[in-house]
């Protein structure tokens, strides 16, 4: 673990917006303690798009919500720190959090209809968000809202300003949610599967829009997704999560062209678009572990065909491959047998 901390010192402290330090998060349930996030170390830098990938239940959503403190009452931060812009917000009260939500971070969810108020005109929902944080006149708020609608690519914003969400298509609703999220210039947007419910053509436009917004406003985006195609399009860095831990993290090139963790290999091999002609898809056998009693060693060991004896006994530390690329697998230990990645993303795959 020490390896990572050294590398972090090299990063300019100025650029780091969000720093999760050994964050663990548990839910107290009648059955016992569910360890949803287990010792996550993560930084988000200014203006970057960090994608978090993993299966459902791996803790990716919970991790984002823990930063915004949007979790139910039975959740508690078991250990670790959340540092935003150099300030430790781990023990912030609800009142203090409320001033951060919207100004420092915003969140977009999968289903826009669940976010929007169906009875309220879109324009009013945006100005509401503006008034919440800034002391501005109604006219100023309105002109800012129109500006935002323009920014997110809604045609004829003056007319659409007064329409309720049901007049909009799914893609446009998601854009409106983005406008609300952007209303008071947040530094980080957590986007939790924002394009999953959209059609591919609409999804492509939404992804382009997110990239454009990032370039124009310099906002950092934490993009939670299970779709590796989408991640390849949008991300600068990728963190792969499994059973509440980050098992591999690196730049998008490192993760896609030189993945090191067997779980990342498994995810890539499960993609139909990367399968070789006539060959069956390779799937990861079994199911993710239940985090009520997480296994002692590597949580992935049971599904891992390369698992060694030590995987069942001791959790692997983060091994550094390059200053930006880390993976938690014993295969990277110098004593481990050298295993060639079974998965290779070569030029042939660029066939579309």
């Amino acid at each position: 673990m020490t390896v990572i901390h050294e590398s972090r010192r090299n990063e300019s402290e100025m650029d780091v917006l969000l720093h999760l330090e050994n964050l663990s998060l548990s839910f107290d349930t009648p059955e016992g303690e569910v360890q949803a996030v287990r010792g996550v170390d993560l930084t988000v830098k200014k203006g970057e798009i960090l994608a978090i990938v993993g299966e459902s239940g791996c803790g990716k959503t919970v991790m984002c919500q823990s930063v915004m403190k949007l979790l139910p009452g039975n959740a508690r931060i078991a250990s670790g720190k959340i540092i935003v812009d150099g300030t430790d917000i781990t023990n912030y009260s609800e009142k203090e959090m409320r001033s951060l939500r919207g100004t420092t971070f915003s969140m977009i969810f999968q289903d826009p209809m669940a976010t929007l108020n169906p009875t309220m005109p879109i324009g009013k929902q945006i100005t509401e968000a503006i008034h919440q944080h800034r002391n501005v006149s109604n006219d100023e708020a309105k002109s800012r809202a129109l500006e935002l609608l323009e920014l997110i690519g809604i045609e004829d914003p003056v007319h659409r300003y007064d329409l309720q969400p049901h007049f909009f298509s799914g893609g446009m609703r998601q854009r409106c949610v983005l406008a609300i999220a952007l209303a008071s210039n947040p530094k980080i947007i957590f986007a939790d599967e924002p394009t999953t419910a959209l059609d591919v053509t609409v999804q492509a436009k939404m992804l382009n829009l997110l990239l454009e917004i990032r370039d124009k406003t310099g906002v950092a985006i934490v993009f939670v997704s299970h779709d590796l195609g989408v991640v390849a399009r949008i991300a600068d860095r990728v963190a792969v999560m499994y059973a509440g831990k980050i098992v591999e993290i690196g730049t998008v090139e490192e993760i896609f062209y030189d993945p090191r963790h067997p779980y990342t290999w498994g995810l890539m091999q499960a993609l139909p678009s990367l399968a070789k002609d006539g060959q069956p898809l390779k799937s990861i056998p079994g199911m993710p572990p239940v985090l009520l009693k997480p296994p002692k060693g590597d949580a992935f060991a049971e599904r891992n065909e390369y698992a060694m004896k030590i995987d069942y006994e001791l959790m692997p530390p983060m091994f550094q491959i390059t200053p930006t690329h880390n993976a938690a697998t014993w295969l990277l230990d110098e004593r481990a047998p050298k295993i060639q990645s079974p998965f290779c993303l070569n030029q042939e795959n660029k066939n579309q």
Partner: protein
Amino acid sequence: MTETPILEVRNLVQDFHINRKFTVKAVSGITFTVGKGEVFGLVGETGSGKSTVARSVIGVNRLTSGKIFFKGSEISDKAVYRQQKADLQKNMQIIFQDSAAALNPQMTVAQIIGEPLEINRLCKTKEELDRIIYENLQQVGLSEIYRDKYPGELSGGQRQRVAIARSIAIHPDLIIADEPIGSLDISIQAQIVTLFQELQKKHRFSFIFIAHDLSIIRFISDRIAVMLKGKIVEMADTQELFENPLHPYTKSLISSVPVPDPRYERVKKIIEYDTSVFTGEGDFKEVSQGHYLLN
């Protein structure tokens, strides 16, 4: 294809009358055939009418117009349908996206798989029934311990396996799968798709696979039809469709699918197609061997 296709759909039109002023035109005149042992992929965006086609084919909807032939007999004709009802219900099976809604929560897995076998009188003794249920559980990769579980105790992937086992058990000629992996995780999706492929190879049933995910459709289908606003805009063999897409909507769809290759994605041009200009008019004609286009 010289032999009689398993399924032939001719000019299927499906309107839904909501009230006097408003009619939803879900499907407006589509024609396709599915050959014996063929995997036919149906792809399109939300609301393009894919599911309506599936439901019309299995006889849930009363057709507005058009004809459907199953193994050469016209099942869209009421009299024929009634006459062959038992046979049709055995030989056509559908698998839905939401397996939680498709399985009776008060029945055990064994009862769920056994029910169609009993209704169709496919086994004579209790022992035979038990054996078939066991075999089918094995086939879909579930062990014996799941026999007496209820759907609520299973994960999404396991439930979908039970739904598949139920369909496979009675050896249908045609299986329609309507977004069967839409609600599953990536690694589980791969498991279910692989299962479909294995079973299809083993039993040689014809298969209509409906999805909005082009990469899955491409992986599993022999032939693909692209739907837009109740019309098939293009239909061709999988390889032909991807190498030589002709309709602007197909091109736009193919270019929109995100490919898990960051360097490629960064330079990729997305072809845009404004679907509001699409009127659905034109003839659906064969432009080259087996490649149909609405133009």
